[in-house]
């Protein structure tokens, strides 16, 4: 069989000589290797204080978008839920009532929109499936929680701040992400 690399070594099964069998030389070689590591650069990132910069294509926690006037973009078509391979998305649609035009962009909206972050595999297919540019994957990840319930993100957790009424919060959220 052809070897993939030339680094494979034949196992030496010869009887060890006495000097080999007290292992000293090999132990010494190993000690040198570990000693060198004392002076190597440490790649650790001190997490809460330092944070790794993510690439722009990083797929993290989901956000539900609003348009420029602060209306929810989602129309509860369910394409994201269908596209989701992990079946993490649940939604319930509702009809927009008169007088709610400043809240929802389309005539139908999601009354309930939940993503189970324990099921989600962060593949980004929901993002691709959405015809309304309503769901995006941001550059943060889901923080730890003490119970399962806490990992089911509702609409309030996912929606971005309203650019009209909550402009400073939105700016802050954008600045971090």
């Amino acid at each position, binding site marked *: 069989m052809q070897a993939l690399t030339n680094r494979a070594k034949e196992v030496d099964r010869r009887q060890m000589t006495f000097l080999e069998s007290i292992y000293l030389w090999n132990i010494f070689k190993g000690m040198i290797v*570990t000693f060198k590591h004392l002076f190597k650069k440490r790649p650790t990132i001190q997490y809460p204080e330092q944070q790794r910069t993510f690439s722009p294509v990083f797929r993290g926690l989901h956000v539900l978008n609003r348009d420029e006037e602060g209306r929810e973009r989602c129309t509860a078509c369910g394409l994201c839920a269908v596209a989701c391979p992990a079946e993490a998305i649940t939604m319930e649609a509702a009809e927009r009532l008169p007088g709610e035009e400043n809240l929802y962009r389309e005539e139908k909206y999601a009354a309930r929109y939940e993503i189970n972050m324990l099921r989600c595999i962060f593949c980004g297919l929901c993002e691709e499936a959405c015809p309304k540019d309503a769901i995006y994957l941001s550059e943060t990840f889901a923080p730890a929680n003490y119970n399962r319930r806490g990992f089911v993100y509702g609409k309030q957790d996912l929606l971005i701040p309203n650019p009209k009424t909550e402009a400073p919060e939105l700016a802050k959220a954008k600045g971090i992400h």
Partner: protein
Amino acid sequence: MTLFAIDWLLFIEKLSLIIIIIFASLGIALYMTYGERKIAAALQDRPGPNRAGPFGLFQPFADGLKLIMKEEIIPNHSNKALFILGPALAMTAALMTCAVVPWGDKVVLFGRTIALQIADINVGILYVFGVVSLGVYGIMIGGWASNNKFSLLAALRGASQAISYELAMGLSLIALLMLTGTLQLGEIVKQQQAPGHLWNIAYQPLGFLIFLVTAFAECNRTPFDLPEAENELNMGFHQEYSSMKLGFYLFSEYINMFISSVIMATLFFGGYDVPFLDESTLTPNIAAIVGIVALLIKVVCFIFFFMWVRWTIPRFRYDQLMNLGWKKLIPLALANMLITGAVILWLHK
């Protein structure tokens, strides 16, 4: 001040010395756990504990607090008295060795000359062996009293390892004792201090090597940590232990490591001797402080070596361990003894 024919001043002097040395050993062992974690981290390109206090310096206290706060579990069908006796014995045996170590020369305090050694007994090294051989009981009693067959097996494994390596340890020192002609540790240090006399490592390199390996085995340190074997072999003899009793077992290992470093420094590296320095030119107190610092520096080097080895070498298999002990180290120690004896005879003629 004599009552019951005891010199009470001497009594107080020795008592305070004992208390200081025991607390110093405990403190050093406490920070050895911190050192272990830091060195392990450094060898694996990590920063190690750094959250508790500056540089994580309060980490040992946090660990100790954690151990104390944990639930204390005594297994139902265990032998309660012996279950408690086990860790206590391990700790006592570990601390008892301090008694014969010369920590420094003399200091003059309140007009009294105080030797920095609890007891300079005639049979110092043998005393060390005696106490080391008692260390086995902590392991065996703890393993048996847990009433768990895996603990018992681990205890047997640990005890037979300790007994096997005690032999090689004793034999490796006999050659050294032929050179020194005394068993008193204080005397051995004084000999190495004398001008024109090198440290014993220069005369006994092979003896030192064997002693070093057996010291690793006696302290149950990697590569010989089969009695514990945290990640395989079902833990070890302290499997059923929790809370501070487990802490005692783990802690006694660190004290053992500290003491064996001190013994190695004393026997082979001149103890409190500073090379190229004539101590007699200094005042006694300064010379004593310099001596203690020198001893501690040597000890820290040894402790670093212990930890460095732990994070380099994998664990021996049990048959390899026994082979190394009985078929390699004991013959080597015997050969070393013969050669040393022959050379001494030849030089004296």
